[in-house]
C-alpha cells in the first residue's frame, strides 16, 4: 500500500517523512564475500542521489537489493531492512508490483528481442493496457522523454537491437519510463553512450526528477557533480559518507578519503 508509512523509530526517522526509500544496516554477500557492509542511507523524493566509488565498492549490489534482484542472482544474500514508501520490501508479497514501480537501466543496453515499439509497449501491456491508441500514446511519450522519438519515429517496427548503442540505451530508458516508475535506478548508463547523447540523457534526468526519485550510480565523478542533489561515496563495501553534492565538491567532507577520490588521487 502506498502511504502505509510505518517509521520504525530507527535512526532514519528524521528522514522518514521525506524519504522514498530508507535503507538500514544493509549487508550484501556473494557466498562468503561481502560486497556491502552495514549501509544506512535514504533516498528522498524527487532527488537524484549520486552514488560514486571505485569498482567493487558495492554500488551495483546496492541497486540490486532495492529491486530484490537477489532472488534471481545465485549466491547473492541480502541482510538488513529496506523500506519503500514505508513498506519493508522483504515483506511485499507481490514482488512483481514492487518491481514494476522501479525502473532499472544497466550499464550495457538490453534491447529486448522485440521491435522498438514493443520494447516500450511491453510494460504497459504487462500491466494490462490493451487499447492501441493508449499504447501508441505511451510509446510516443516515453520515447520523447528519452530523447529518442525523433530518431526512431519512422522505424518503430524495426528491431530494437538494430539501433546503435546510444539509441539502444535511450530505448532502455524509455522502457524503464514506460513502467511509470516512482524510482529510477541507473547503473553507469553512459558507459556505452557517446558524450553528446550522454548530455541529452542528463538533461532528461533533470526533468524526470520532478516526478520520481533517481539513483545514479556512476564512475564519472563529474557526472555526479552535474546531476546529483546528494552524493554517496562507497569504498570497498563501506559507505564512507553521503552529503549534499555542492558541499562534497567544495571540499566539505567528513572523511578525507572522499576528498581524495573526487580529486582523482586513487581508485
Amino acid at each position, binding site marked *: 500500500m502506498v502511504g502505509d508509512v510505518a517509521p520504525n523509530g530507527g535512526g532514519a526517522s528524521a528522514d522518514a517523512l521525506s524519504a522514498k526509500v530508507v535503507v538500514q544496516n544493509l549487508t550484501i554477500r556473494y557466498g562468503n564475500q561481502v560486497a556491502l557492509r552495514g549501509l544506512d542511507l535514504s533516498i528522498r523524493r524527487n532527488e537524484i542521489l549520486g552514488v560514486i566509488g571505485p569498482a567493487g565498492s558495492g554500488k551495483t549490489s546496492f541497486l540490486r537489493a532495492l*529491486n530484490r*534482484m537477489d532472488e*534471481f542472482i*545465485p549466491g547473492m544474500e541480502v541482510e538488513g531492512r529496506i523500506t519503500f514508501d514505508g513498506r519493508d520490501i522483504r515483506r511485499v508479497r507481490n514482488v*512483481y*508490483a*514492487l*518491481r*514494476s*514501480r*522501479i*525502473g*532499472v537501466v*544497466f550499464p550495457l543496453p*538490453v*534491447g*529486448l*528481442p*522485440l521491435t522498438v515499439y514493443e520494447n516500450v509497449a*511491453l*510494460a504497459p501491456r*504487462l*500491466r494490462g493496457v490493451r487499447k492501441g491508441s493508449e499504447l501508441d500514446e505511451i510509446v510516443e511519450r516515453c520515447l520523447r522523454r528519452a530523447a529518442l522519438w525523433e530518431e526512431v519515429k519512422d522505424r518503430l517496427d524495426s*528491431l530494437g*537491437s538494430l539501433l546503435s548503442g546510444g539509441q539502444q540505451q535511450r530505448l*532502455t530508458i524509455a*522502457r*524503464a519510463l514506460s*513502467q511509470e516508475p516512482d524510482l529510477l535506478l541507473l547503473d553507469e548508463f553512459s558507459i556505452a553512450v557517446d558524450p553528446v547523447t550522454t548530455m541529452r540523457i542528463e538533461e532528461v534526468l533533470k526533468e524526470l526528477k520532478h516526478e520520481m526519485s533517481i539513483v545514479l550510480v556512476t564512475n564519472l565523478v563529474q557526472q555526479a557533480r552535474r546531476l546529483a542533489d546528494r552524493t554517496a561515496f562507497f569504498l570497498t563495501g563501506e559507505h564512507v559518507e553521503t552529503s549534499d553534492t555542492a558541499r562534497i565538491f567544495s571540499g566539505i567532507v567528513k572523511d578525507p578519503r572522499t576528498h581524495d577520490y573526487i580529486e582523482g588521487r586513487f581508485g
Partner: protein
Amino acid sequence: MTGTAAPLFAGTSLNARDRKVEWLVRALLGLMTALLILPVVIIMALLVVEGGPVISWEFLTSPPVDGMTAGGILPALVGTVWLVVVALIASVPVGVAAAVYLSEYAPDNWLTRAINLAIINLAGVPSIVHALFGVGAFVLFFRFGTSILAASLTLAVMTLPVVIVSTRESLQAVPRAFREACWNMGATRWQTIRRIVLPNALSGILTGIILEVSRTSGETAPIMFTGAAFFLPFLPQGVLDQTMAMSLHLFVITTQVPDAPEALPFGVALVLISMVLAMNALSIAFRMYVRGRKKW
C-alpha cells in the same frame, strides 16, 4: 629498419611453418567432413539407382500382394504416418513442458541435477529395452493391446529425452540478460517465458522435433512387439488398431520373405528416407521462416 633489408612481407621461417600447419589443418578437417558426407551420398545413390525403378504411383497406393513379393506399400506408409503423428502428439507437449520447467523454474539443486542425469540416461537406453517396457506398460498394464497407441507411446517415451534436451538447450541459448530485464520490469516468470523466451527458442525447439520425427519413423524394435504388424492389407481405422510400418516392413521383406525381388527392399527404403527428408525439409523451411524474424 637495419641494413640487411628483407623484402617486404617475406616473413620468417616460423611464419612459413605456421602457414604450412594452417594449410594442413584445413585440409585435414575438410577431408574428415568429406568422409562424413561420403556414406550419405553412397547410400542415397544406391537407393535411387536400385530402388528407383520400383517406385510408381501404384507402388505407393496399393497394398502388398503375393506374400509381400509384389504390390505396393500403402498400409505401411499410412501406418508410419499414424505412428509418428501420435508419438508427436504424446511427446512434444510433455517434453517441451518438462524442458521449460527444468530450464526456467527448477532450482539448481541435487534433485534437478538427478532429473537431468536421468534424462540423459533415458536417451542411452537401447531401443529394444524400450520395446519391452512398452509391452509391459502400454500393451499389458494399460491394456491398449498391440496397437498404434501402444507403439506410439513407446516411441514417445523413447524420444522424450531428445525433445527435452534440445528444447532445454534452445531455451538456455536465449540470453539471460533478456530475462533479467523483464523480471526487473515486474514481469512474472511465465510472462517472460511467453513473450521473450519461447518465441526466440522456437527454431531450436523445432530442430529437436525434426530429430524426433526422423528417429521415430525409422525405429523398428520399439514397435515390433507393441503395435506393428507383419502383414495387414488394411489401413488402420483408429489408434487401437494394429498397423504395418515402413521400418518393420523393410525388415520383414529383407529377412523373412526369401523370394521377394531384389529391388523391392531398395524401393521401400527409398520411400522411407524420402518421407523423412520431406518432413525434415518442411520443418527446416519453417525454421528458416522463424529464424528470418530472429531478434538479436
